[in-house]
């Protein structure tokens, strides 16, 4: 029973993900609102990065300029996540007082 229900749910989720994936234009239907691999719909933000990244940050690698400059705050958060995980591992795998005895 549990398995049947969960499989149904999984199939629904899979259908949704495939809905994201399959582009009807490949089969002759109208493009609609689907994602198309290799042809993004809007590119204005990324084109801004590509055209202005070199002047504004001085880095040839645009990805690095995004990681550390345009979205540097995300990187701070990400570094904190790693820091958190290290602390978590150290905390869980620490020796308790009881063990030391």
């Amino acid at each position: 029973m549990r398995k049947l229900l969960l499989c149904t749910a999984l199939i629904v989720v899979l259908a949704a993900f495939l809905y994201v994936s399959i582009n009807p234009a490949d089969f002759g239907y109208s493009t609609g609102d689907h994602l198309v691999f290799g042809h993004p719909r809007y590119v204005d933000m990324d084109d801004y990065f590509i055209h202005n990244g070199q002047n504004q940050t001085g880095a040839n690698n645009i990805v690095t300029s995004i990681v550390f400059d345009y979205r540097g705050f995300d990187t701070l958060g990400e570094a904190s996540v790693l820091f958190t995980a290290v602390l978590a591992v150290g905390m869980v795998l620490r020796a308790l007082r009881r063990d030391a005895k």
Partner: protein
Amino acid sequence: MNLDFLTPYGFWNPILWLLVIFVALLVAYLIWLRGNSRYKKGTEQTKPFLSGYAPESKEAMMVSASNIYWGFTSTLKGYYNFLRKMHTGDIRDYLGWYVGIVAIMLILYILWGGA
């Protein structure tokens, strides 16, 4: 500063409520005053009358927490059995409920989610 707190159909005045509490405390004090003041603590007067039975231990005299609402839970037995079955403690079931709700909401949103 306006201290009145207006809800759509009523209002809330802290001064008033303080008054109400004060009155309630006063009433309680008056009731307490009506009590017999001749009883002395620690004498025979305040000890329970046990009429021959041995006094129970202190722990046993207290109703334990699991038994307090026994009547309530036994009335709603079917409901509580369902809830017990739901809370299996198995991590996969936790995920299963989540995936199930995602699936239901996917269907519902695709049907009625749009403006």
